[in-house]
């Protein structure tokens, strides 16, 4: 082809030499393969971390309810409401009988309220009215901050669950900061007395907070028989850690977790309990009951007994003694599971 000078100039401006083209293609291929091998171009896949890390970090500024000496039996309060009694009233009465929130939560502390908001279904989560009532009560103790936090069941979007159950709006209205703990950075905490794990990864907020109020819902559970206070603490874990618990030994891991991330105050929402089947799809029973204690194991044991009674079980206490994670937690010294050693105060508001 004949080309004039201008044509040549123009042609060279708009064309690329073959060498350059091949170089570009080679560079692109190398770059692509290199990035793929470095996983820069791979889709994010949730990796479950197995193995342990050795970093041991202890909670700072912890106000832990001490395990009571043997002479004083742990107390569990049962507050029942007649028709028309509000959840606010039940919560207030429970706190009063425990000595008053001002005597329980230290002033100027960071407080975490941990309800069960693992699912989108309102029947499967803590009644947001209960959560809000607790937040309002806590404000009297003049804390530095109140965080209502949760990390929902794997596969559920925590933000959506917080919103669709009404937890976010009611908790924020009551004056709390609502957080998706799954979006927190993860820190490792050592588990010195662990039966199955020697360290656990938890949300940073949970490790650094001073006072934990655990607000579980009273429910049955397919794998652990019941899910109450001890199991509810799994909502402080990142998704990968939840998976690890199932891989290793779920009941022992729950106990191990509670031995280092121990709730200071437990208020169980048993206003509507899930019977027969759980953690979803069970039969809801109106109990209008709130169970409170400083001992998470005792709280679980008493609450599970109430659940079995509501189902009409013939030997509720026997059934409780067969719940593995409660027994393991008792063995680790987190609390008392033996019913005869638990002092129960049962009141009814009308």
């Amino acid at each position, binding site marked *: *082809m004949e080309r004039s000078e*201008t*044509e040549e100039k*123009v042609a060279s401006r*708009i*064309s*690329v*030499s*073959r060498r*350059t*083209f*091949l170089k570009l*293609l080679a560079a692109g291929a190398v770059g*692509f393969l290199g990035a793929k091998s470095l996983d*820069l*171009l*791979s*889709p*994010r896949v949730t990796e479950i971390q197995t193995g342990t890390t050795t970093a041991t970090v202890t909670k700072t500024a912890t106000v832990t309810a001490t395990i009571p000496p043997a002479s004083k039996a742990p107390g569990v309060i049962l507050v029942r409401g007649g028709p028309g009694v509000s959840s606010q009233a039940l919560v207030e009465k429970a706190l009063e009988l425990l000595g008053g929130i001002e005597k329980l939560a230290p002033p100027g502390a960071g407080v975490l309220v941990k309800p069960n908001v693992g699912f989108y279904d309102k029947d499967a989560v803590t009644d947001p009215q209960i959560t809000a009532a607790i937040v309002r009560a806590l404000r009297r103790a003049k804390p530095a901050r109140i965080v209502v936090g949760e990390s929902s069941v794997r596969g559920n979007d925590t933000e959506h669950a917080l919103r669709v159950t009404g937890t976010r709006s009611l908790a924020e209205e009551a004056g709390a900061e609502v957080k998706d703990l799954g979006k927190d950075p993860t820190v490792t905490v050592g588990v010195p007395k662990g039966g199955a794990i020697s360290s656990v990864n938890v949300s940073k907020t949970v490790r650094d907070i001073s006072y934990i109020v655990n607000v579980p819902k009273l429910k049955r559970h397919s794998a652990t028989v019941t899910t109450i206070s001890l199991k509810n603490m799994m909502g402080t874990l990142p998704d990968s850690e939840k998976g690890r618990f199932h891989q290793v030994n779920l009941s022992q891991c729950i106990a191990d977790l509670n031995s280092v991330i121990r709730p200071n105050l437990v208020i169980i929402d048993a206003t509507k309990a899930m019977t027969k089947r759980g953690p979803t799809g069970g039969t809801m029973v109106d109990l209008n009951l709130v169970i409170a204690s400083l001992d998470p194991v005792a709280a679980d044991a008493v609450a599970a007994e109430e659940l079995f009674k509501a189902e009409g079980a013939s030997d509720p206490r026997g059934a409780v003694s067969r719940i593995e994670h409660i027994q393991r937690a008792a063995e680790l010294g987190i609390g008392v599971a033996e019913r005869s050693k638990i002092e129960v105060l049962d009141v009814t508001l009308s």
Partner: protein
Amino acid sequence: MQLVRVVRLLLPISVLVIIALGPIFQLAYGSICTISIGSITLTCPLGFMQTSLASRNIILGLLAPVAITLAATILLGRVFCGWICPAGDAMQRFGDASLPPKLLSLRLTSFAQQNSTRIVLLGSVLAASAILRYPVFCVVCPIGIICRNVISLSQYGSVGLDLLLIPMVAALELGLAPWCAHICPLGTTFSIFSRKSPIVPVIDKAKCAACSICTKVCNMKVSLLQSPNLEDCSKCLECSLRCPTRAIRWRKRAEPYAS
């Protein structure tokens, strides 16, 4: 750099940014194949034709979007090619580089560059879609590939092997004919609807020096100096910017300088 050239460079990039970020801010959804910005939806007319033929059904949901796109084309010509298309430049460069100039024979080149060839390419893409029951060009369309990879990059940080189809498809033209002017079936579709485009480049006979620079710099190979194929004009303004005697203006259709 000239403002016009800056905008011509940034506008396609901005469109890709809108495609990547639009859903996050709920302002825009889709890709160049079908895009909604606010309440306005536009769609690729070639995609519309292929899917309608492949499914033996006029896709009603696309009727309004394709009408808007074609209306814009009738008015503004191949302005998509000049200002929005993210693929044209890459396709031209890959195509040019795919065969050394020595192997290009004049006969093959003129066959590849004649009008009937690109019409046949468009026609066979449509025929293939109708016969084979899938929108054949949508799979290999460099615009589609770029958009889909931008989306998967922003959504989950990965790109696909289909990116390699871009240079491969460009190389198919063997350097015989530049992509935008002579091969791209979407461009051919736009040309068909641009025949009556009202604003076109017009040469002022008094100032013209007949140097042919306008023809040489034109990306769409509009031979402005003699029998210009104005339906291919993408309004990129390059000819008027480069004319040494500033003889080119943009106005309503009139007879250009004939040598």
